[in-house]
């Protein structure tokens, strides 16, 4: 499996650490309440198909990425710097 790092180009999966669904970018306010935090931290759409998830190029450039990927086929259709996604 190869992940197209926007900074480094396509790299072997072994260079990356994984952190799950990109909904982790939408962190609730501290006082959002237990239900919001439960949903943020635990509940997942967990799709069989296209998903956006978070990868850390740990053995590479150190960038966090949002990768668009298919969980059924492992096709990777895109990768963006998470910082760009989070700042927009």
């Amino acid at each position: 499996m190869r992940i197209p790092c926007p900074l480094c180009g396509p790299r072997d999966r072994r260079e990356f650490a994984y952190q799950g669904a990109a909904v982790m970018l939408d962190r609730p306010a501290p006082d959002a309440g237990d239900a919001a935090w439960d949903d943020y931290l635990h509940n997942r759409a967990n799709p069989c198909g296209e998903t956006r998830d978070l990868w850390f190029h740990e053995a590479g450039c150190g960038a966090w990425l949002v990768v668009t990927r298919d969980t059924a086929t492992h096709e990777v259709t895109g990768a963006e710097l998470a910082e760009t996604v989070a700042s927009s």
Partner: protein
Amino acid sequence: MRIAGRGLDQGTTSVPFTFDGERLTGRAGDTLAAALIANDKRVVARSFKYHRPRGILTAGSEEPNALVTVGHGPQADPNVRATVQELYEGLEARSQNAYPSVDFDLMAVNDLMSPFLGAGFYYKTFMWPKSFWEKLYEPVIRRAAGLGALSGLANEDTYEKAFAHCDVLVIGAGAAGLMAAWAAARAGADVILADEDARMGGRLLAETEEVSGQPGHAWAADRVAELAAMDNVRLMPRTALTGAYDQGTFGALERVGRHHPHRPGKPLECFWRIVARRAILCAGALERPVAFPNNDRPGIMTAGAVRAYLNRWGVVAGRKVAVFANNDGAHRTALDLMAAGVDVSAVIDSRAEAQALGDYKLFAGARVIGTRGRKGLESLSLRQGDRTLRIEAECLAVSGGWNPSVHLACHMNGRPEWDATTLSFLPRSGMVPGMVAAGAARGQFSTAACLADGARVAADVAAELGLTPADTPVPDAEDRPYRIEELWAVEGRGRKWLDFQNDVHVKDVRLAAQENFRSVEHMKRYTTQGMATDQGKNSNVAALAVLADATGRSIPETGTTTFRPPYTPVSIAAMGAGAQGMGFAPRRLTTSHKASVDRGAPMIEAGLWYRPAYFPKPGDASWQEACNREVTTVRTAVGVCDVSTLGKIDIQGPDAAALLDFVYANTFSTLKVGRVRYGLMLREDGHVMDDGTTARLGEDHFLMTTTTAAAGLVMRHLEWVAQTLRPELDVVFTSATEHWAQFAVAGPKSRDLLDAVVDGGLDPAAWPFMACGAVDVMGVPGRLFRISFSGEHAYEVAVPARHGAALYRVLLAQAEALGGGAYGIEALNVLRIEKGHVTHAEIHGRTTAFDIGCEGMVSKKKDCVGFATSRRPGLLEDSREQLVGLKPVDPAGRLTGGAHLFAETADPVRSNDQGYVTSTCHSPTLGHDLALGFLANGRARHGETIKMVDHLRGVTTLARVCEPVFFDRKGERVRG
């Protein structure tokens, strides 16, 4: 036997080897199988279940029968395919799965029992009495099962792994593959051409057909030479593609050093990770046998193998050969044999309209219905219409048609489709993204079609890559149509074997259907069909056809099982190359490593680092004595310990403090420049992630310290926060761990020590507890932190790592002059337990700030990672297990790590469990054992006596619950 004048390597040197201890001779270029055939060895193995005598079936890696052990001692290599193993001088091969010998195997008694040992019989018996399974049945079954044996000795051979990258990976170097590689290379692509055979050419080496007016093998040799001369082509013979993985990644196994006598240092095998923009699957096709009664006798081979042995190696497995097929391959085989002067006793063609193509006895519309010969084929019976005939034959060449090698194309869950013309499964396009099939791998069976297909597919691939395909002329070659008629199993008395190695026959498949194991997966699992070392390459399609027939469905309706990697088995040593011994993970060494080793310290692993456990001295009775001495040294004089392994992260920027406020539960923006503060870091789930001290070196400049074990995780976490949760913060950071060598200097005389090494001496007023700043250490710019893990007046002094070794020696010399010395992590652990400092034994991932008594550190005035979730009701309940100290009621009482805690009079069972012990030590300072642990509602129970029970070590001790600080509770010594 060897046929004069045949084979590609005639007249080459003879090669001595042994088989089951017998000295034999083959010739250079032989496989072990070819050499065994040349030496008239018929029974070369025993089958898995019934221990039936078996001979060589095929001429390739799909061989299910001829598995042998090569070599001896630690080099012994079980389950080697004799059909793949190249002969070399001194090769030592032994047969397997037979006792006392492959010719006379006592376990063959199983075959007599076979009427009772049908598919799945074991699910229905061996249940009584209950205890007999482990004691009797299972050991007997295990000993009878298995094929070869491992030596039991640690591997001593070299294996390696490597990466390769290319534009186009061509898999298989037969007619299609050579053309594909040639065409792709001429278009300018970087090409890797891999073939599992030692010699490239595929079936061109095994057949007599001409290509472009040359013998096929000669044409292949020319192409290979041409490719070898091109800079953009890498030829990888002896390399089997084992798996197709995501985004154009392939696994491949190269046999590097298996074709010659053992050469120390040379790898036996290399496991390749090949990354290709495109792949062309030219893996050819595998011939399938026909299931007829007693079709497993030695001497019965696939027809293609008979031709390969004859044409490539000049050997044949019997004086009289018969041929049985449902396709034209039968005739081709007969003609080749006759041309070589071999007696062809009959050609049996199941197709009624078949015509003889030469001067041989043809039985059209006939079938083989039985065979004779206990240790090898002697004769066969055939039925043609109403008549039955017996034909003498020592070798029977069988062809049930060809199965395209679609395996790699199926590795990503794609299912091949049934083709009613070729009676085979063909790959669909797109099954593996970027891979296309060409030639026989997609059902193109004539040489001409393979050549043309290879060229065409390669041209398409080159165009897709933006290259300009060069004009690649396709040479002339035979272009006969592939004519085949369905024939899977022949009725008649006797077992009709499908899976030769696992001893699955037609009746087993029918029994599975009869018992309603109708799904192809159920049938496979119930009968073990296709689960042998060939993974059904020889038998799956026929078994599927039998199942389809038994269940009244068509083959496509019945489906296929899944092909999964690897295509051919891969040794663990190859895929795990480099890891044996110390290679499994990097070793991180501090600058004081050598000095510690020189002092005899046992070095122990801590988060990839090595740290000294303790420093023994002559006369020490045990490690405990050394540890006690080091603890006392620190408490009474001064000790020195390398703490460079702790993670150090340099954090700078206008928002550096804001970042720290967000990642730490407590506040850092209020920290003064030149001061250090202890920080507690939470995971977003509200549990403690790590702890450590952070120093403020400047208004916008901090240095964070992490634990040794969590350094990498914390770095990842900081990047996470900075890049995704708080991207607006103007802050940057980088690891500074490796630049610095840092040493703890702890004990009442630590100031005296540092006063001697810090340039200008140490002004006590400038260095209160938790101060930090730059100092020069013997002329070297360094840093000093007045922090303490031991609870003593202590410092940590850091210099650039190039000076680390020297500084450590200076510090030790100074310490020794003051009556102190080095201390290791055993003593460090005792010191911190005496002070009640937590480590990852306590912050083990399941504990919260509340649990460890640091709830007050979680600032309520700001958000931080883990803040909201740490407020969940379940994480703040008094009933939670809370950090406590434990002291034995009897000072001689033992406290042990991992023991559980109970009320004094309660039975030590789960329902009474109240907690557990995390850390223990013997405190030389206090003269008894100490422990930290977690106890339900523990903070409210100080003073209570509880029972500590360690079932595993047989220890029960009454202990007093106390505050988790045992020494200098007011912290006077650190400040003193």
